[in-house]
């Protein structure tokens, strides 16, 4: 094994700070909104049941408080979903893939291809309906170090998967 320890000029290294990230498919926002709506509907119906049956004998002000809380949550959940969607994006480079997400807690995670363990494409029932797929890239670093990119076209996901697989097998030769 040869040993090298050259000095490297960091400014010459390739970077991804100025590169343009690819946003997710617009229909993914629709999907997120639908699932948010489903959750909200569940909460609202639960609230309706509690209020109409009145098993807990809730005083009026509690009902008002609860309803306003649910209302705020409702608005907030849509606002958050829309906001967060615009921060979700990915970038594929020659040797690595990055996924950026988060509105309040922003994060960018980068996985070099030569550390990828395996890749998986997931499609739930809603995703199948909307022609979307989720690409999952696993590393040996545990759950929080894996990348999961939602809102891709299935063909896109497959292409990325094939690209990464070809890159990882290059490495091994």
């Amino acid at each position, binding site marked *: *094994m040869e*040993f090298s*320890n*050259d*000095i*490297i000029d*960091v400014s010459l*290294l*390739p*970077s*991804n*700070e100025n590169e343009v990230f690819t946003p997710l498919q617009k229909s993914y926002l629709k999907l997120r909104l639908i699932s948010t709506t489903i959750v909200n509907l569940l909460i609202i119906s639960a609230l309706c049941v509690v209020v109409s049956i009145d098993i807990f004998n809730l005083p009026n002000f509690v009902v008002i408080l609860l309803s306003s809380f649910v209302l705020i949550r409702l608005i907030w959940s849509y606002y958050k979903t829309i906001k967060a969607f615009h921060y979700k994006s990915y970038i594929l480079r020659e*040797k*690595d893939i990055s996924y950026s997400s*988060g509105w*309040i*807690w*922003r*994060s*960018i*995670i*980068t*996985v*070099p*291809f*030569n*550390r990828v363990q395996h890749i998986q494409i997931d499609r739930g029932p809603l995703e199948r309906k909307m022609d979307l797929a989720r690409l999952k890239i696993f*590393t*040996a*670093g*545990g759950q*929080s*170090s894996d*990348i999961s990119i939602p809102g891709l076209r299935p063909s896109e996901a497959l292409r990325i998967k094939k690209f990464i697989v070809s890159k990882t097998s290059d*490495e091994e030769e």
Partner: protein
Amino acid sequence: MKKSDSIDLTQPTRQSYTAILIIMYRLYKLLIRQLFPIILIVLLQGKLASSPWFIYGIITIASLASLYSIVAFFKYYFFIKNQKLIVNKGVFKNSVLEIPFDRIQSINFEQNLIHRIFKVVKLNIDTAGSAGNEIQLYALDQNLANELSEIILRNKKKSTTDEGVMDETPDERKIIFRLSLPQLIKVGITENHIRSGGVIIFFFFYIYDSLKDLGINVIEKSEQYAPMAEQLAQSLTLMALFVIFFAIVAFVISLVRTILNHYDLKMYRKANGFVVVSGLLNKKERAAKDDKVQIIKSSQNLLQRLSGIHELVIKQASSAIVSDVKSIKVVGLSGMDVSDTYRYVLKSSFKGLAQLNMKKVEFYYLFKKLYYSSLLFLPLILISGYNHRIDLLIYAFALYIIALIGSRLAYRKKRYGIGTSLVKIEGGVFGFNNQIVENYKIQSLKIKASFFQRRRGLCTLIIYTASGSMKIPDINEASALKAKKFLLYKIESSRKAWM
């Protein structure tokens, strides 16, 4: 290789007969642990214990358990076939496990008291795969165990024909470090006694809870003694005595635990890895290959700092990252020993360690800590002051001061260095610790920033490895991006196997 030819591992082989004893022992232990509350209630309510039914019950359970152990023993056999270790087992349902040698990550030997009396060893065979996929051979004759592990390791080498450095004879054992008895006692004295205190408290709560589950309320029972207890509580000297007694018990427990775990600790080189053997009653042997080592963490608590000894944790790549099973802990090392170990594990990267330029994190790290401890303690102080609870006020104030000092110390000690070959992160509050990972062993990198961090142009860099993650908190965004860029370059241009 020459070895006694009497051992033929291609034929189905059973474990040593001692295994019956060990299976039985494990089963009894499990039963007792499960039935502990019932046993306790029976013993407490004297009448039941003397009834013949109780004794019959015990005899039935015991004989069933023994029968089970014997059947389990005879149903358990293993052999080698086509580069695979095949294990047959199961009492009610037969199961066959096939493990290709390549998948075997490590083979560890273990000996507890029973093993030592009968001169057998326990073999833990770890595989790469989900947790629970490992094989335990409870008792094997020493020769058989050696033979088995050698066959597996030898054939493993053949299939992975990578580095040519593997030529060292496997028996070449070079002692790097040996823990002497005085040093061991020093380790015991400087242990974290607060943790032992926690164990005691936990134990009392456990007993209390089990009793309560059974309808015996300790508080109610003790109320008969309440007047006396009140008197006791009032007498401060007794209170102080109790504290001292508690401290002594905690101290003794951690001392005993240290001696049991680390007695006669030896760390030596074996081929391209480390072997650590230790233990008084339970002798454990753990092995780590240099390539498998991901993070090396050395630490000192306050007492250890004063006596100049270090603790080293060598974290290996494993499927079950969260569990501590795969990390090897060595205690009582001097600064020299630590640096020797670094030299072995890091090899060519070792030189980079001295050249690291350690940088501080941003002031926000301290600010955040001060802010949160104030948020916690100031209301407490105000409330207790408002209610004229001077005693609470003093406690809260003292804790607040400690938290402030701790924050300051944590900020001063938090440093990070990113070199051409490795990353080092230092930290600690009253003690000191540092973690080292070689650049090419990094799995992925994450930059994370909260709303508050972004407002100040800061972020946190998280470095993921195959044995856990390391965090560099609150550094400015430009330097985080620079570091990430550099590390990515290092990973992507590396062709070395990270494991």
